[in-house]
């Protein structure tokens, strides 16, 4: 059963159309990786789903309800939370305050401060540190933990591994496995194809604002993705949909 349905979605940055007629469905508990070159429209698509960017046309249906016109904070209350590209922590607040801000705005549920520290023990000693002083990996973990504090049913993560050292990427992906194990639906934008394939059950490849390849992670081949990534393959016929 699909928890998210995007239908004929278009989004612009000024005159530039970043998302072109995208239709997409995400099942409950599924982990979907969104891959594609820079400028393919992945971030805009994620932000439009989360309410951080206005859709020009089309609909976003979440949990059976049309949320296209809802502002971002009300989508969070419905269960959609985005971990934005570049982490975007509140730099002058402590790590724990970053989590508490999200706790106020989010829903009631499994994730609380104690649950987050239990799942991500690395964060506990950092709770009084200013977010701006955390390392890139610590910031990414905090950004994911902050999103979890809203108790999402759909977690959107934009570039989880971007700019991180390999050891930090390892830790971030371990934390994502914890999230997946709780049954949270995950949509992940990822440049690292190997990482995307390791965690996702389904892959969607975007090029120039459109979906050009979509299929199960077990059936789709790396070559098909690379071809779609570089625009050598057009159309929606790569794998199973």
């Amino acid at each position, binding site marked *: 059963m699909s928890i998210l349905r995007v239908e004929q979605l278009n989004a612009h940055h000024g005159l530039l159309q970043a998302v072109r007629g995208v239709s997409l469905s995400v099942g409950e508990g599924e982990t979907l990786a969104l891959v594609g070159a820079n400028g393919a429209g992945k971030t805009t698509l994620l932000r439009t789903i989360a309410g*951080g960017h206005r859709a020009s046309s089309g609909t976003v249906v979440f949990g059976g309800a049309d949320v296209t016109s809802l502002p971002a*904070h009300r989508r969070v209350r419905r269960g959609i939370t985005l971990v934005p590209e570049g982490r975007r922590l*509140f730099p*002058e607040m402590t790590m724990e305050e970053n989590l508490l801000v999200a706790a*106020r705005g989010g829903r009631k549920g499994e994730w609380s401060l104690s649950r987050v520290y239990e799942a991500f023990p690395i964060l506990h000693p950092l709770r009084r540190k200013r977010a701006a002083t955390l390392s890139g990996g610590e910031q990414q973990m905090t950004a994911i933990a902050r999103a979890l504090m809203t108790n999402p049913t759909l977690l959107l993560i934009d570039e989880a591994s971007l700019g991180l050292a390999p050891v930090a990427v390892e830790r971030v992906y371990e934390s994502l496995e914890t999230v997946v194990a709780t049954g949270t639906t995950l949509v992940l934008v990822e440049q690292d194809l190997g990482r995307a394939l390791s965690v996702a059950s389904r892959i969607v490849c975007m090029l120039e604002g459109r979906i050009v390849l979509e299929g199960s992670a077990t059936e789709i081949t790396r070559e098909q993705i690379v071809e779609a990534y570089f625009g050598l393959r057009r159309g929606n016929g790569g794998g199973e949909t």
Partner: protein
Amino acid sequence: MIWLNQIIQGVLLGGYYALLATGLSLMFGVMRIINLAHGDLAVVGAFLIWWLHDRGHSIAVSLAVGLVAMALLGVVLQRAVLERSLRAGVLVPLLTTFGLAIVIENLLFQKFGADIRSLDIGNLAFDGWKITNEIYVGRLPVLIFVVALAMLGGLQLFLSRAPLGRAMRATAQDPDTAELVGVNARGVYLAAAAIAVATAGLAGAFLGMRATFDAYAGPTQLIFAFEAVVIGGLGSLWGTLFGGIAIGVAQTVGAQFDPQWSILTGHLVFLAVMTLRLIKAAAEGRGGFMAALGMEA
């Protein structure tokens, strides 16, 4: 000893300036709005509380009702004027609030005329404590200073501990991301505007108790508040107290040399701080308007 007395009087006067400047500082800290109508809003508060008191209500009731009404006025202004201005960029609210100040002054003039007024608080306006033969402290200045400290402390506690206070700080740092983690940034701005305008009203009430006011008293109050906020660093609450005290001490010490120097000395201290900031910023390779105001670019 006379100098010590002037410094004490200056510190107490600084409490009033800090109180006056708190709302200006909060509005800038959260919404990045330099509210040029802030002084006039304080005068609206003064007139409102005076009017309620004049209708036979006690000072306490007039103050309570007046402050609630000022908070509501903040909400209305935010929704009707400031929110729309902010969408057009950071400079538009400057023009909008400048226009708002003129509208407020003329409405007050139309309603209350040119008469000067003050709030009747009986002996509180004159009573004081004799510390030594040369040092007296008035009860009202001490009360204003204590209220300023309590308000700044309370606001600081609210911003650091209360969930809404944390949401305000988050929104001040990054409103888009705050929305993405469930904070209603628009609601937060409304709350900040309500608090800021209510504090302006409280400062207006004390203006009415310690001095006189008329429909055109706002711009002078704005200048004092602005100077206190800028000396302390825009958006910093404790810096606002420091800035208020700096202006207050400069004025009372200046008055000791010559009573006509009082206001001028305060302005000169402000000018000196701005100049030093510009020199420091230029030496560090920064510069411009933002650096002079004590803001990081």
